[in-house]
């Protein structure tokens, strides 16, 4: 059961993040929710590659050849996804700052001139 815990946590993180995005009206909080969701997805990927008692996947430093290693591919995917996550979060925050300058609010209930 303990083996499944990272997956449960990652799904919970995504669910909490999605809940924040849907319910909260403060744009900064929404960006935080998005960041939580991204962390959940990253944790999911890393947890997929984990092997019990596995070592880092570096061959020449492996003390006992033949021992199990964690999977490197998912870690590479996670690195890429973290970089993308930073870009999207930065862009979302930049939009929030500029929106605050133009509208004077970060409340999504009041920042909706497009609907009018």
């Amino acid at each position, binding site marked *: 059961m303990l083996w499944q815990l990272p997956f449960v946590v990652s799904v919970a993180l995504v669910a909490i993040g999605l809940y924040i995005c849907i319910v909260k009206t403060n744009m900064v909080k929404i960006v935080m929710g*998005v960041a939580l969701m991204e962390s959940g*997805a990253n944790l999911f990927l890393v947890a*997929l590659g984990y092997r019990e008692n596995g070592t880092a996947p570096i061959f020449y430093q492996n003390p006992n050849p033949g021992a199990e290693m964690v999977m490197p591919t998912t870690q590479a995917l996670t690195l890429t996804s973290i970089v993308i996550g930073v870009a999207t979060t930065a862009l979302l925050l930049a939009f*929030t700052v500029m929106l605050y300058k133009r509208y004077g609010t970060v409340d999504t209930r009041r920042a909706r001139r*497009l609907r009018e």
Partner: protein
Amino acid sequence: MMVPEFFQDHAPILVVILPLLGAFLTPLIGKASSRAPRYVAALFLLGSLAMVAVLADKVWSQSPIPVVYTLGAHSGSGINPVFRIQLVVDGLGVLMAIIMGIVSTAAVLYSWSFIDKYSGQDKYYTLLQLTAVGAYGMVLTGDIFNLFVFFEISSIALCGLVAFRTERGESFEAAFKYMLYSTISGVFLLFAIGIFYGEYGVLNMGVISEAMSSAGGASVLDKIALGLLVTVFSLKAGSVPMHMATPDAYSEAPGGISAIFVAASQTGLYALFRTSFTIYGHYNPNTGAFNLDTYTLGWIVVILGVLSMFIGVTMALVQKDIKRLMAYHAISQTGYMLLGVGVGIAVLSDPAKMTAFGVDAMRGGIFHIINHALYKGLLFLTAGAVFYRLQTRNLNEMHGLGHTMRFTTVFFMIGALAIAGMPPMNGFSSKLLIYESVYQFNPIIAVIAMLVSVLTLASFVKVFYSAFLGPKPENPPEDAPTSMLIGMTILVAVIIVFSLFPGLVVERLIDPAVRALLFPWLAGGV
């Protein structure tokens, strides 16, 4: 025509790399001269279009077997799809690349005049080329994680462009909204990719489908992944009920970008069809079984299509903002493509129905993708030209533009007739294919599709009447500048060719795409 062997061999990656190189050169050259970025962008996008042509020639000559390009290995044992990143280009991928090539070339020429007054042009052209990179990459790659990366590249670049007019708060509102939706969908896509990797340990879509097949079909986890993928890709395509950000983003983006936006959104449709057919619709000739009985999936796509068609057009009827109106029509037209190909997905496992009407429905749906990118791109460009002269998008504040903006008026008419499916325009050919085949699938849906077409015509008659007809305005605006007219002329020329020779286009362009989706299952029957 003689093409050097280097370009022949490396065409798939050059299509993606040329605009990427251009995107990073643009800001550097922009330091030297403020007018240089526009030429760099046009040059690299044209180069990319030329590479698409070379690639298309190669793909069609060996259709339906896809062209496989392995990154980092030339030939021999180095090409192992489990360890390598591969570009896999088939008829559908190359069709989407052609769409992006034509529309991005038209849009970049159009932008020369359109953003002439703005500062930050180097950034504009950088992001424009990055959007093209994202779209090209998504449709050419065979690796599902690469697809995610290119998906994010095109989303991020498009959001930057939606927020380009920094003097308006509304553009940030639209950009935030679109970015939020695309980021959340990106997380879901990553989750689905994680599920595939956890189960099969590979990221190549072809290898995933074979692994799924030898594991005895789609498991429960695969079905969860499918649910995530359908949500993500229909959101990217802008289909109802995930359409909330689309009208805002389309209408706030600068003129040329709205046109590229249409082509970039359609990569979502591509990815949806790719996963439905290549991964889940994979046919195992040894056991005679499919990975998934696609009947339910097909109906889900059809229902998404019908909802998009109907809700899109009814929302469009009440709009006063010319670009917002066109954006709702874009949602409505996306419904036709989902409907056509959705019918194909639903009858995939039934060869009799497939040959009777399924293939025609898919032909119609895929033909509609390229038609829509052309005429909706053109309509967005004409709306941008009107905005450029009047500085308003409100239909109530414009009248009599036809007196002086003659070319723009004619181009708008061509686009409007095409979108309404009036014969002999290209929209008519694809819609007719869809009506005929969908009628045999379910008559009620075909009737809804025709009704939507009538409403589309009504809505565009309204726009034409209120914006272009009527008394001459007091200060009649001049016609659009030359570069904008050239951009629109490119699209008009392609639309006219497609309208005159629909049979030839279906045979040369569309059939390889349909064959690629059905390969190796009914590929001979097309």
